[in-house]
């Protein structure tokens, strides 16, 4: 008796992952092939189990054979032109994520007084793991999407479109965006995890730590802090990717910087944000001649909005000027 069961199992294992419209045809053809191979091997003698095993082994493992049949045989999630960039971006994203989460973990260890350090430590390991997996998944997803949609990462329509070799001053050095990313990460971690470490000691006899921000108010605006970080990191990643000052980078900078300004307004509009005790203590320090400084503290939110807007405006103008100077 022929071991039909083994053949059936083999054929099923090959065809089960194939597209349904080719499945039954491949199944019939495979069975006729196996039967031909057995006839060839055994002639008129009834093939035994060993013959069947030899023939099926010759055909290869079911998954190998299914791979050869599959129309997706040569496809990859992320293939050649994307893979180089993918590896590059992934490395940076993972490093930055690990850095941010480690910084958060360290702050946690030093500020957490009620829980034993090893619990905080294990918590950090857990967060690090989840964070890295998420970062990996996110970058992979984006690039898989590029691959699938065939989005071009470089203008390669013709040789004329090849970018010129950037001169020294139009190149963006590697450390510039990386530093930018780290600053964004540090900012987000400190504001989200421990805004209370920004503050000062006040009082002559009984020195007391007074935080600059109201922790509760900051926490309630967590989404704005995330938005700051995402805008900043997004811009810097693009800068890293571009590697030079271009008009595209200038446009992106104008967009992200303007959005950051809007978010800055939203952030400082919150009356609860700044700790009034801090301001009154500060005003006590600067009296008399230093009334100017005292005034600044009275209108601290406006002062911050002004400084940040100015800094972002300078950033926008520099990027635009450089883009028009170098990207012709």
């Amino acid at each position: 008796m022929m071991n039909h069961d083994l053949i059936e199992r083999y054929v099923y294992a090959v065809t089960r992952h194939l597209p349904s419209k080719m499945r039954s045809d491949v199944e019939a053809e495979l069975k006729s092939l196996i039967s031909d191979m057995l006839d060839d091997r055994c002639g008129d003698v009834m093939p035994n189990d060993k013959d069947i095993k030899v023939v099926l082994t010759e055909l290869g493992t079911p998954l190998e054979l299914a791979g050869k049949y599959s129309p997706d045989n040569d496809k990859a999630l992320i293939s050649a032109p994307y893979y180089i960039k993918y590896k590059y971006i992934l490395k940076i994203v993972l490093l930055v994520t690990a850095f941010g989460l480690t910084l958060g973990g360290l702050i946690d260890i030093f500020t957490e007084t009620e829980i034993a350090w090893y619990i905080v430590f294990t918590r950090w390991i857990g967060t690090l793991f989840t964070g890295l997996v998420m970062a990996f998944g996110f970058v992979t997803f984006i690039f898989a999407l590029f691959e699938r949609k065939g989005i071009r990462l470089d203008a390669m329509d013709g040789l004329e479109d090849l970018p010129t070799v950037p001169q020294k001053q139009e190149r963006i050095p590697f450390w510039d965006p990386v530093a930018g990313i780290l600053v964004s990460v540090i900012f987000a971690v400190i504001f989200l995890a421990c805004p209370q470490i920004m503050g000062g000691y006040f009082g002559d006899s009984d020195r007391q730590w007074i935080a600059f921000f109201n922790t509760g108010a900051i926490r309630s605006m967590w989404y704005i802090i995330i938005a700051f970080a995402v805008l900043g990191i997004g811009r810097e990643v693009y800068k890293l990717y571009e590697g030079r000052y271009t008009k595209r980078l200038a446009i992106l900078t104008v967009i992200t910087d303007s959005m950051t300004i809007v978010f800055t307004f939203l952030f400082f509009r919150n009356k609860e944000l700044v700790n009034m005790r801090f301001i009154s203590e500060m005003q006590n320090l600067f009296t008399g001649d230093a009334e100017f400084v005292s005034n600044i503290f009275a209108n601290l939110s406006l002062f911050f909005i002004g400084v940040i807007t100015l800094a972002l405006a300078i950033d926008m103008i520099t990027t635009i000027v450089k883009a028009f100077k170098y990207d012709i």
Partner: protein
Amino acid sequence: MNKDEILSGFILELRRGTIILCVLSKLKIPTYGYNLISLLSESGITVEANTLYPLLRRLESQGILESTWNTETAKPRKYYSTTETGNEIYIMLKKHWQETVQSMNTILEGNNDES
């Protein structure tokens, strides 16, 4: 990677394109896969079934081959033959192959003194 592995990799690459030409050359008459393997092996070309069968299917989906199931015999078999397009492609491919062989021979014979 040792020498044998590198060599077998090169041989595989060389063979890959030639198999299509072999297949097309034999399929003016409708033939089923396993018979095609024996036909080719008679001419000294070994093709594994697990390479040939998926290849036949791919060529069919490209419109180079067409197929019919012959159910009249005791064992139903799928017969493949070249389409009109397939034949045209075969003729051009064959011409290209002959030119390549000629050039290759010139190149390799020129190097005879080195071997």
